């Protein structure tokens, strides 16, 4: 089980910092920094820059995503912002507007 969960119906305005996994089912505005995996689940909304390990998005993200590992934009994801990661997958059905920066 993920250590930190922002449940549906909860809104955090500010900065979220975590040394463990973060799952967002609700809303985060501000900044999201995690050392481990970040998962924006369906219905989750993040209006913030995200930095962390592997990032999986099935919800909405408005902001830049900076990952030390991989970024997966899953079906139903809506991302507006730049993505920087070593590996990126964009699933069929994901909406994405922004730049991709991969270490080549």
């Amino acid at each position: 089980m993920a250590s930190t969960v922002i449940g549906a119906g909860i809104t955090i305005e500010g900065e979220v910092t975590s040394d463990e996994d973060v799952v967002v089912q609700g809303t985060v505005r501000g900044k999201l920094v995690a050392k481990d995996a970040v998962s924006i689940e369906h219905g989750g909304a993040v209006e913030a820059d995200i930095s962390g390990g592997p990032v999986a998005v099935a919800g909405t993200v408005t902001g830049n995503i900076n990952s030390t590992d991989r970024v997966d934009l899953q079906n139903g994801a809506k991302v507006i912002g730049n993505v920087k990661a070593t590996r990126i997958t964009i699933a069929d059905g994901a909406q994405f507007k922004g730049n991709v920066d991969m270490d080549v």
Partner: protein
Amino acid sequence: MATSTVIGRASFIRGRVSGDGDLEIAGRVEGDIAVGGEVVIDTSGLIAANISASRIVVRGAVKGDLVAGEALVIEAGARVVGDLRAPRIAIAPGGLVRGHVQTGTAGAARPRAAAAPARAVVPEVKARPVVAPPPPRAALPAVKAAPPPPPPPVKTVAAPAPKVAPKPAVVAARPGPPAPVVPVLKKGTKAVQKKRG
């Protein structure tokens, strides 16, 4: 709402947490917490925020005002610095509270003010004697107890003093003993020399 929010022990939130649903906090939160459901501060939780919820359970440390729509529970081991306000407030033995305590809802409390503060003062007073005074009292006896021991130490000091004294005596004697020793030797040697002579 079925979904609940968990702030893990390695997580830190600075800002405002709001919305509907339950909240379990094992990490750190600075800012403001206003939710519709239940808020549980775990033993590892460290909160510097005003909390408003329907139900609040504290097992960790909170610095801020707590306002609950239904009930407020301060459990053993909890530390709260701030005002408490809820229709029902429970402070368990071992729970630390420093602040104003008021039972009753914000609006209804005013008319009942005479009754509510009276109730409120009792748990507060109970909480303080239980937790706060013992340390100072215990500390004072300790301080008072400290002076008596010195006499024995003095004895012990006196005891070691001789031990210590011999050493200085030896040190001081180094110049002294040679003097007596020499005359003794001189006397002896002289006598022997005279006898021999």
